């Protein structure tokens, strides 16, 4: 029996097709929670640098993250479940990033947007951290300097696939 198959045959006298109480969907808890969580991502935009411009562009109406349910930013880590690290992380900023990440409640996912957050970008000096994953664990890496808005949307879709297929603690 596949996900979405009705439990009983409809269209019989015992179970008329429009009888709502005879319709049952069976699925796994993981799938349902994954479906719910992937389409309601509340992002924490941890924007530090120029990639913030692309973040604004992808959130605006032309490229629109609202189509994927990931529109609403929450600037409190307690209310957010997706940490978007947008821009360079410096050594001065790294403890702040770590604190924000630790204040977020489970389940949480982290997206590193742009070359600086992925690997340090073209910066190699005394002040830039070579990749945000030195500080927090990252789920999706988005390369680009800055990445095209379509790349960021592709990454959100990739993250949604990950969320759908992962195990969710209840």
């Amino acid at each position, binding site marked *: 029996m596949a996900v979405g198959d009705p439990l009983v045959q409809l269209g019989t006298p015992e179970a008329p097709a429009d009888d709502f109480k005879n319709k049952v969907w069976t699925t796994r808890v993981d799938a349902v929670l994954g479906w719910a969580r992937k389409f309601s991502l509340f992002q924490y935009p941890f924007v530090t640098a120029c990639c913030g411009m692309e973040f604004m562009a992808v959130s605006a109406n032309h490229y629109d993250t609202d189509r994927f349910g990931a529109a609403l930013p929450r600037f409190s880590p307690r209310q957010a479940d997706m940490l978007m690290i947008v821009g360079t992380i410096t*050594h*001065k900023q*790294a*403890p702040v990033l*770590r604190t924000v990440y630790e204040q977020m409640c489970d389940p949480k996912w982290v997206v590193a947007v742009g070359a600086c957050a992925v*690997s*340090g970008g073209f910066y*190699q*000096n*005394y*002040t*830039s*951290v*070579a*990749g945000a*994953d*030195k*500080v*927090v*664990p990252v789920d999706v890496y988005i390369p680009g300097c800055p990445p095209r808005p379509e790349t960021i949307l592709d990454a959100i879709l990739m993250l949604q696939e990950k969320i759908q297929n992962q195990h969710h603690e209840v």
Partner: protein
Amino acid sequence: MTTADGGTDKLSPVLEAALSLLEGQVTGYHAFRGDDTVLVKASHRLEGTRALKDAEGLAFDLLMDTTVVDWPDDDERFEVVDHLFSTKHHHRLRVKYRVTEEDPSIPSITPLYGSANWMEREAWDMFGVKFAGHPDLRRILLYEEFEGFPLRKDYDKLDAQPLFEPRYHGTRESDG
């Protein structure tokens, strides 16, 4: 250090006025394609800039930038550079001072310009040039725990001072 030829090359009025105003404290000057530069003794920074600001014909009421250049091979290692602009007359002047490494101290012009506050803090943060009379001379771009002055030529640019323990050690030269 080039000096404009007084005979064939006329000095611009701004440079002439500045030189006559700062008479005695000037160690050199040069001009190139409209850019006028005066080299002045470091101890005279506050009085000299006040004179440039108050003079009617010059009226340099906007400090565009204060920065430092590190010449490691010179005795007087740090060159403090002020860029002044007049919003009344729309002319500019660059004023340069030299300080040594042993006593990298120069008077602050925060009493004259509000913008000098943060610019001098950045110069202190990056080069270690002390501005005497600055109300709040502390690091502005880097964190307090940072040791050293990174834009000096003898600071290794890959020498990072992390505040956190990295989750892994990578392969880039700047990684721990």
